[in-house]
């Protein structure tokens, strides 16, 4: 007895339903953990996905939580579509946040219309630079990018830690926290008395641009061709190396913008905990969004909801807040499995031959 996976494309109308199926399955699978705390899973899920949307403040908080995920999700998706497995969004985010801090500190007395673009640009450039070595190694030396991009995440974190425990350490409190960036470099709030900031609009704009690039430009067509099969793409006369390099670097740059946005929109000074793993969560968002930008936007909002909901559930029912992380991780694995039905079907039974 065993499970067999056979090639058999599913009808097109099923595809958008698969992520929804994954969400449902995930809630079924994680129900046991909720019951382990003596809480009715339906009550818990109500607090998870309905309650945060019921109030104005918490509904806006969902958008705040979704902002970095929109960016890292878009970054990861852009690379994955181009066939480049960028696992390094986390490190690129830290690089972006660091450069944004450095530039933001210099913007004292510079007007906002100049300071804010400078901070965003710094984040983008640093993300690109952090993504550059593995991308070059991939393109020039055919070295698999999965491990190199992953390892650079740890290096970025050590770099930030070195800065915060060295030149940027707060001289009075001795905390590993950089000075605050210039007031003119701080992102304006979109709605008063909430944390929703310019970064949200920036993220939406970037997603729209990337959607256009992927779906409506010649470069996007080439990129998708490379992602589907580099060999066939090369045969069709596409310059595969240049395409992969561009996808990898743009991806890194957008992850860097995520870092700049968290810095200038939320924290104002660099701390080690500026990302609780947004780069990795970006992979969840990209997968759940089935590697298309509309899906990514919806997935980021959904994960933002889960993040907000985890706090609601924790406050209201005493379920440990980490349930949100368990749900997200389960969702990733379930989505990955369920998406198999796009192109394959699963047969039960004895293996032939």
């Amino acid at each position: 007895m065993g499970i067999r996976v056979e090639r058999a494309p599913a009808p097109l109308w099923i595809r958008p339903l698969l992520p929804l199926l994954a969400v449902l399955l995930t809630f079924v699978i994680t129900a046991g953990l909720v019951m382990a705390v003596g809480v009715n899973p339906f009550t818990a899920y109500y607090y998870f996905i309905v309650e945060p949307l019921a109030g104005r403040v918490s509904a806006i908080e969902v958008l705040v939580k979704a902002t970095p995920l929109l960016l890292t999700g878009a970054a990861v998706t852009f690379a994955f579509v181009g066939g480049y497995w960028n696992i390094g969004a986390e490190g690129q985010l830290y690089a972006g946040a660091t450069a944004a801090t450095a530039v933001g500190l210099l913007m004292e007395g510079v007007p906002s219309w100049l300071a804010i673009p400078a901070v965003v640009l710094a984040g983008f450039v640093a993300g690109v630079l952090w993504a550059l070595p593995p991308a070059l190694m991939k393109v020039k030396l055919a070295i698999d990018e999965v491990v190199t991009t992953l390892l650079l995440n740890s290096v970025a974190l050590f770099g930030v830690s070195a800065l915060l425990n060295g030149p940027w350490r707060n001289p009075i409190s001795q905390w590993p926290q950089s000075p605050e960036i210039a007031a003119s470099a701080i992102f304006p709030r979109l709605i008063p008395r909430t944390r929703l900031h310019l970064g949200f609009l920036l993220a939406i704009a970037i997603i729209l641009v990337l959607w256009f690039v992927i779906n409506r430009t010649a470069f996007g067509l080439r990129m998708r061709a490379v992602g589907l099969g580099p060999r066939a793409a090369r045969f069709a006369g596409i310059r595969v190396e240049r395409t992969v390099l561009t996808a990898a670097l743009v991806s890194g740059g957008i992850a860097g913008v995520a870092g700049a946005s968290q810095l200038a929109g939320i924290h104002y000074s660099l701390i080690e905990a500026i990302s609780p793993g947004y780069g990795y969560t970006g992979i969840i968002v990209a997968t759940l969004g089935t590697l298309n930008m509309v899906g990514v936007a919806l997935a980021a909002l959904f994960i933002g909801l889960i993040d907000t909901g985890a706090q609601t559930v924790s406050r209201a029912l005493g379920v440990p807040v980490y349930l949100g992380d368990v749900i997200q991780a389960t969702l990733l694995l379930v989505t990955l499995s369920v998406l198999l039905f796009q192109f394959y079907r699963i047969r039960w039974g004895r293996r032939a031959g």
Partner: protein
Amino acid sequence: MSGELLLTFAVGLLAATLRVATPLLYATIGEVLTERAGILNLGIEGIMFLGAFVGFAAAAQAVEAGLAGHLWVGLAAAVLAGVLMGLLMAFLTVTLGLNQHVSGLGITLLATALSLYGFRLVFGESSVLPSIEPFGQFSVFGDLPVLGPIFRQYGLTYLAFLVLVPLSWWVLYRSTFGLNIRAVGENPEAADAAGVSVFRVRYAAVILGAALMAVGGAFLSLAQLGAFSPGLIAGRGWVCIALVIFARWDPVRAMWGALLFGGVFALQLRLQTLGLELPFEAFLALPYLVTIGVLALAGRQVEYPGAYLKPYRRE
């Protein structure tokens, strides 16, 4: 006088090196076996964390229940947790043939979240970290003068260096199982044609590897610290991913790599306690940078297992 001081320093450093290298050695050899079968298991970071948590939680429960041998209960529970995670990883990547790196990262996220969730469930939100009586250190050579501290180690450290390294070398290069692992990792089609069950061998390698990763994590909570905290693993799993490449998928070279990193880590810790103003993060980033450098220099000559990252489907 200063010579004597230097000797004490060196002896202490060597002893610490062996301790730091131990969890890395278990997990790296686990990853070597896994990758040799053609599967990259990026679940390593999470599986080590889960092993540390489950081992600790089970040991603490055993103490509460008044069971003797609580540490062995913990170790067994950690192995079981590793086996379960290995089973999940194998199901995703071998049976379903899903993307290995995304599956592996998913396992890391899941195992980490489950551990933190479980920690809150079992121990609540107390501000004092719970602790247990950890494994003791002993010397198989009795109390040697001067060099004594080097040999005062945990049983798991002895096991890692004196049993695991030679045994895994023997399994990989001298046993049928090891031959099969290498066969399905290099050329699954040929192995399949030769009558080797690619599925079964890959399952076995992934599960065995994950169990070793869990033991590596459990070493930290059950032996070195006797406690569990959220920052316990702190990227050690990723160090092992680097070490596997550094060791070019060989258990003996993995040992040298683990010792080298253990030495660098122990040294920076000692220099730090001496109050030297050095950017210690540079030391910590070293294994990653060296590995990336090695990859860049060796370039196309790095010999990955032939079927690395490739699922196998009969079609």
